[in-house]
């Protein structure tokens, strides 16, 4: 069988193979680019998440914000111990309003609550609070 006999078909076949190669090239190139775009997007999301998490949980002003808990009740009702990045505070004889204010403040502070004990004593409340940041 001579190839010359089928030269028309061979021309078409050759062109078809070139087209196929072009398609494969495009397909692989598009896939590679899409993969790269995904990686870039994932990196952006990670960086954003790190920034957001650090903004909340590694805020350098937390220590100052925690000090606000000292203003939640008269000084006579508070026993305050703040060392490095830890706080131990005891509140005694808080009325319901003071308790509400205190718990709302605690919930809004970006600290790790290690212990929160609230005990009712008659009409008043005693609170023991331990946290770190």
């Amino acid at each position: 069988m001579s190839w010359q006999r089928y030269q028309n078909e061979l021309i078409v076949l050759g062109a078809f193979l070139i087209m196929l190669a072009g398609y494969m090239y495009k397909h692989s190139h598009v896939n590679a680019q899409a993969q790269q775009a995904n990686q870039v997007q994932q990196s952006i999301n990670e960086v954003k998440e790190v920034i957001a998490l650090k903004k909340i949980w590694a805020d350098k002003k937390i220590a100052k914000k925690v000090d606000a808990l000292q203003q939640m009740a008269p000084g006579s009702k508070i026993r305050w111990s703040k060392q490095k990045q830890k706080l131990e505070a005891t509140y005694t004889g808080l009325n319901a309003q003071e308790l509400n204010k205190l718990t709302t403040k605690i919930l809004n502070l970006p600290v790790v609550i290690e212990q929160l004990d609230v005990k009712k004593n008659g009409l008043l409340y005693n609170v023991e609070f331990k946290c770190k940041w």
Partner: protein
Amino acid sequence: MGKSKKLLLVHRAMEKISIDESVNIMLSPQFYTLKRESLPVKYAYQAKKIAPSLFEGLLDEQDTHEYAVFKEEEDWIFVAYDIENITAFLSTKGIPLEKIAKIYFAQESAKHFKTPVLLTEKEALVTLDNTVVVMPRAALGEEATFVKFDESFMPNKGGVTIKGGGSSSLLTQQQAYALATIFLLFGAMFIVEGARYGQAKADTAKLQSLYEEYPALESGYTRQGIIDKYRKIDIKERKKRDAIKHISKMIFKGSTLTNLTVNDKTFKARFLCANTTAKKQVKQLAKKSQFNTTTDKAKNSLVVEGAL
């Protein structure tokens, strides 16, 4: 394939023609040398083997000859032809090699030439003594009748194919070029499209600016380490705060919180309910928040607890 194509009678005095599609050719005796032999062989391939020896001394040795053999009644017909000369001649008459599907010899259709076929004003093709020959028209007499050469002269079998001819081609050259052009255009389009498919430049620029602002976060390991550390804290602390918020909703007229303990793993709240209705309501709220409830020893006292 070959039989559906046009059949052209080729002779030395033919006019130049123009063809678009491949054609079958019937050669007049001017293009071949014929010998009739009665040989004790059964198959054509066996007869073909001895063909060169039969033509020894008869053919010009400078030419390269090929041989065709076919059977006619009891005899074997041997045909010697010079394909190079034939194709060269055909080419000068506007029949290129690639347009030649199959070549037949006039002898293969001897019975059709019993009534002469006029080649030119002076010559005709006719079968004499079972052999197709070119004769002067004058030799046939004034009253001779002629038939027109057409596709009915096509033999049922036989013929030879030539290398480079269009016999087996499914496509004409024009069709092939048209298809090839379309395919190549598509191929080029795909390549250009692929090369132009750019990456998301806006996202890359955004990422670069983030890296410039936070160079420490360029490493994926660093990012993942920080995320793992703070995400754990974030999830746990949100759980604690959610639990406290849900518990605070259980405080209403008739339900008093007497004790609340929250640590790193669990929370526990004790409620003193004024009546069974209040107790039921606290239970429902706890259930809604998917907390566990247990009734305390003290009457109307309810403990709500859960894990963090």
